[in-house]
């Protein structure tokens, strides 16, 4: 579900990041108040669980990947606020250390996976747990909760993708970012998550929960205290309503502006020329790019060409002695 950079418009990213700021603020306050200091390192363990779940990702059509997140798992172990922080950290590590999911789209990714997923999942879990009686009520609750949570998050991601071509096009009518509309993105996203990844999340959540319950019961002790307070419910409602509105507002404004601007500058930039310039054959044909000064084109081509050559030769030099693998069992 990681959205890389440049699949969403910067405007969308900005709106999503702005929406996350109050969530993060509230979460940090809540965690500080409710989780004892000695238990704080557990947040790191939670984040690591989530991180590991997210490492097993499979690409799905529509521009992203599918995998377990473990947000509901952490929420049922430590509460949704802690889950928010833990998943945020896991996403940050993925973005920065493993290049999975972008920096600009970090806000959007957090919105889906660190906010919608754990809170929806937690709410569903609590709802089920109140209805179901018996020894395994928490497992059943978490199973259903995690399924609901990850699908809610996937839906959010699909919508974010799907509105891109509606809002952001260049002068020639080409999509600037993700080109697939809601009619493509929602089925592409939900198909995988309603089946495979939803199940993966359920299995991951219940397996770890069952394991923790058996092997490390003390890990599970701090959960009862956490309650979703009324202000947060209001905040959630507000975000759910306001974020799409904000997106629409931002999008249209930008869209108009960019077309105007391009129309105004007129002479310089010709997208179609540019396109025929290098979408076929090699990246930089004829050692120049249409639409830019010839000298600049030469310099850039020379620089890129030289750099690529050096890189290739350097890579060849190590190709023979491939990296030492550790002894495997």
């Amino acid at each position: 579900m990681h959205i890389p950079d440049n699949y969403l418009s910067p405007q969308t990213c900005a709106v999503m990041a702005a929406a996350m700021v109050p969530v993060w603020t509230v979460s940090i306050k809540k965690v500080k108040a409710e989780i004892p200091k000695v238990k704080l390192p557990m947040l790191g363990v939670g984040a690591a669980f989530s991180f590991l779940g997210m490492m097993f990702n499979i690409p799905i059509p529509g521009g992203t990947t599918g995998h377990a997140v473990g947000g509901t798992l952490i929420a049922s172990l430590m509460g949704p606020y802690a889950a928010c922080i833990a998943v945020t950290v896991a996403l940050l590590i993925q973005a920065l250390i493993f290049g999975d999911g972008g920096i600009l789209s970090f806000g959007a990714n957090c919105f889906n996976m660190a906010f919608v997923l754990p809170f929806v999942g937690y709410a569903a879990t609590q709802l089920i747990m109140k209805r179901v009686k018996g020894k395994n009520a928490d497992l059943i609750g978490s199973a259903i909760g995690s399924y609901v949570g990850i699908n809610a998050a996937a839906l959010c991601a699909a919508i974010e993708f799907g509105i891109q071509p509606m809002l952001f096009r260049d002068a020639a009518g080409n999509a600037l970012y993700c080109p697939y509309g809601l009619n493509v993105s929602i089925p592409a996203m939900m198909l995988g998550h309603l089946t495979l990844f939803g199940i993966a999340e359920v299995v991951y959540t219940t397996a770890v929960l069952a394991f923790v319950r058996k092997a490390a019961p003390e890990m599970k002790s701090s959960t009862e205290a956490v309650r979703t307070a009324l202000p947060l419910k209001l905040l959630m409602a507000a975000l759910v309503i306001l974020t799409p509105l904000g997106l629409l507002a931002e999008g249209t404004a930008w869209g108009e502006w960019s077309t105007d601007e391009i129309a105004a500058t007129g002479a310089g930039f010709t997208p179609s020329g540019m396109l025929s310039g290098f979408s076929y054959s090699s990246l930089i044909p004829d050692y120049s790019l249409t639409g830019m000064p010839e000298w600049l084109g030469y310099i850039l081509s020379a620089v890129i060409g030289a750099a690529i050559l050096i890189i290739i030769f350097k890579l060849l030099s190590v190709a023979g002695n491939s990296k030492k693998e550790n002894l495997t069992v």
Partner: protein
Amino acid sequence: MNMNLQLMRLIRRITGNDSEYQTADQSRILPALRLSVAFLAILLCALSQNAIYVIMIIAAELLWLSMKSPIFIRKTLKPVLIAVLFCFVLMLPAVSMGHPRTLLTVSMKVFESVLILSQLENSVSWQNMTDAFRTLHCPQLFVFTLDMTMRFLVILGRYSNSILEAVSLRRVGPDHWKTAGTGGILGTTFLRSQKMSLETSEAMACRCFDGEYRSYRRRRFSRPDALYALLIPLLIALFVYTQQAM
């Protein structure tokens, strides 16, 4: 049980790369500054309405990369190529749907941003990354959690590694599910790593850690840093110029 071991090998691979090259090709620039410049470059490229700016950034990045060691280059380019290939395949149908240009712009921008991130992650170790977030005044709790997570992952990786070695020393029989007996190994590894990271944080508390990190011989803002900081106005100026002039 073989799956257990397989999983642990995977974890070792994922987390192991930290200890292997922990100070490989370390940049001497302040991490916070590097992070900011990388962020700015990605942001401006995303905002850019024409290709020239993106290509210029790519050229500069490639040039810089070509001066690095082959190992560094390979480590940097691997994720980039995967991301671009993935992006290309994904965007291909869009061509027939009437968005021919999208294929190119998005792939190119993906190449650029993943390249920048990949260089960043390979030249700034995670510990410095934690430093950077602290310098950029992220909340303490957040920095602490980030730190604990990385610590746990590193411990998990290191511990998986030694456990795998220990298993290999004593797993001398023919592979057979009945004689395997290592079913609980993954769970044990997790619990043990969790215990170890808790103990590490206890050790920090014992040395009066109060949640506020300070670094020894904290890097001052030096001349290379100042030069590097010049990139910020430069990037912006270039952006404005390319957006208007062409």
